[in-house]
């Protein structure tokens, strides 16, 4: 599958809570290239063995943001809670998918014009109901605890830019699957273990057990980071189309980050650098403190409109991330690079 097709396929499938459409598909693909296993934690972990016992863990999270149903009323309106960070300002009159006994479409209520007095505040998900338009029949299909996801389809923008939902972090998952494809069957200087981790959006949970299971010497978390847009300062963002973003932070291994930079330079792979003053809010924060500690860095794909149903990225950045990871691993990681 082409990179774009793979990204679109995985992003239009859902993985949230007990829904595992995207992770099932990713498992199927990763199994072709690596010794792959599904875990009860909903992690998918695939291993390609190398010549030594040294193990590099590549991590991308397979879960996505969304909602969980907390009430179904007799008129067909649902109350929901957020799963992960959702921008409530983007919800009025938004159509979403409810994963009930069957998948149904529902629309978030918006305040009718004659009742809108001044600025409406979008600060409380308990005030924003979800309309199934099914009236009392809603209870036959939807139950408390069912998940709700965005339903937007992926589409092309100008240049190599594409738009869709759940690119955070299906973009990272696509990178891992592509790197697995490229490395599969090759003689590797080190073991590479691909972790498609669950529960990142609710507190970096899947990776906590994945890192323990894998017990790597070093790790790279492949996630998304803020892309440039007119209302985001260049201090907080990196331009789309300039390659992956290598993270530097007190919680990351500076040597590993530097080796990634060196590898990019040697191979003329575009990259940018983002410096943070503390934790990264990615799986790297948990992997790095697993067991007796893991040398960890981040390599991120710049993304606009993060945590919305219309996330935008540049496909050339995915290729740049794949190229960099491939070269870095073929050199044997931080010891060899």
């Amino acid at each position, binding site marked *: 599958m082409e990179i774009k097709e793979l990204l679109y396929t995985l992003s239009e499938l859902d993985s949230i809570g007990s829904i595992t459409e995207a992770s099932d598909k990713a498992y199927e693909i990763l199994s072709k290239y690596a010794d792959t296993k599904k875990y009860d934690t909903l992690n998918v972990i695939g291993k390609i063995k190398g010549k030594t016992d040294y193990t590099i863990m590549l991590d991308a999270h397979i879960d996505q943001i969304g909602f969980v149903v907390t009430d179904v009323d007799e008129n067909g309106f649902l109350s929901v809670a957020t799963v992960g960070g959702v921008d409530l300002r983007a919800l009025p*009159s938004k159509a979403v998918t409810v994963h009930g006994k069957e998948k149904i479409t529902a629309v978030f209520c918006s305040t009718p014009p004659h009742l809108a007095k001044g600025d409406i505040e979008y600060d409380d998900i308990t005030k924003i109901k979800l309309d199934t338009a099914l009236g009392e029949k809603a209870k036959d299909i939807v139950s408390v605890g069912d998940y709700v996801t965005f339903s937007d389809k992926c589409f092309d923008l100008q240049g190599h830019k594409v738009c869709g939902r759940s690119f955070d972090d299906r973009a990272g998952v696509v990178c891992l699957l592509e790197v697995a494809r490229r490395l599969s069957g090759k003689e590797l200087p080190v073991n590479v273990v691909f972790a498609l981790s669950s529960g990142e959006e609710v507190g970096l949970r899947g990776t906590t057990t994945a890192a323990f299971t894998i017990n790597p010497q070093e790790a790279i978390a492949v996630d998304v980071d803020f892309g440039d847009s007119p209302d985001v300062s260049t201090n907080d963002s990196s331009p789309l189309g300039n390659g992956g973003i290598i993270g530097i932070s007190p919680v990351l291994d500076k040597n590993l980050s530097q080796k990634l930079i060196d590898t990019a330079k040697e191979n003329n792979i575009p990259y940018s650098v983002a410096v943070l003053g503390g934790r990264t809010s990615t799986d790297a924060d948990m992997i790095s403190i697993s067991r007796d500690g893991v040398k960890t860095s981040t390599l991120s794909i710049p993304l606009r409109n993060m945590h919305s149903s219309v996330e935008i990225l540049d496909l050339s950045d995915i290729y740049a991330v794949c190229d960099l990871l491939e070269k870095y691993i073929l050199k044997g990681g931080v010891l060899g690079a």
Partner: protein
Amino acid sequence: MLDLLKKLCLIDGISGDEHAVKDFIINEIKDFCKYNVDNLGNIICFKKGENTPNRKIMLDAHLDEVGLIISNITENGYLKFQTVGGINTAALMLRRVLINGKINGVIGGKPFHLLDADSRKKLPKTDDLYIDIGAKTRKEAEKLVCLGDSAVIVSDFEILGDCVKSKALDDRIGCLVLIKLLKEYKKYDFYATFTVQEEVGLRGAKTAAFSVKPDFAIALDSTTAADIAGTPEDSKVCTQGKGVAVSFMDKATIYDKSLYNAAINSGILCQPKSAVAGGNNAGSIHLSGEGVRTLALSAPCRYIHSANSIVNIKDIESMLSLTKYMLENIANENIK
């Protein structure tokens, strides 16, 4: 019926740029009536029936929908826009748009992670929003988009239980009812007008009514159904599934009371529009010439002027039945 409604809704036609909807409708009705297109782009149809009433009757629905118009292109290739009609500005952020029916774009926003607590609660001002088509420079964007181009928020037409969910239900439902009457109704002569620019001030209906010079008119449109969770009973305006809403008064018209009474007492499923709010083409039509006795029938529509409006199919059927009933009873002078 729903197939035709789907086709009608999925054509983009914001105010001032209704030609695609106009062409589609002409193709639907051309074999069933006489028609002409006036200088503004209104389609004015005359349907010859088996009988010619003493009264000239005009049925009206508007072609246009709310949307966006491109007003500027920034140095970095982003598009600025103005709203066209009373589009729900709360439903603009982080949506997919289609420009001129072919160029994909996204109304972007600052990630809420980077906002302070106060800004997270409030919608950005429409002036601060922009459309991202993925162009890197003004020059690149200008190859694809011109100032004045139209944009609409993209959405699917779907059936949800007994309801339809789509963009542009306001007022393609009215268009659907007119098309069906032009094709099927035979008893009395009537005029049908498909009018432009309703959403920017009831403008097309003004010139259409001037041309038709009707004695009686019925405006077919949509109105807010606020029958949603959390709305007090007395603020609901109308309730879905209880039939088409019949207006006694809104912000543009005080309606002919005998027409209102005849409709409400017709025995056909319908309900009063229980709020003096909004307005529709009746506002222009009833003031045309020496005045026109006018009625408005509106489909109760949740999330009106958004890309995901919801209307109950039963209420569309009610609009069709009640329009036919009123046409007939005005024509045969049962209604004095």
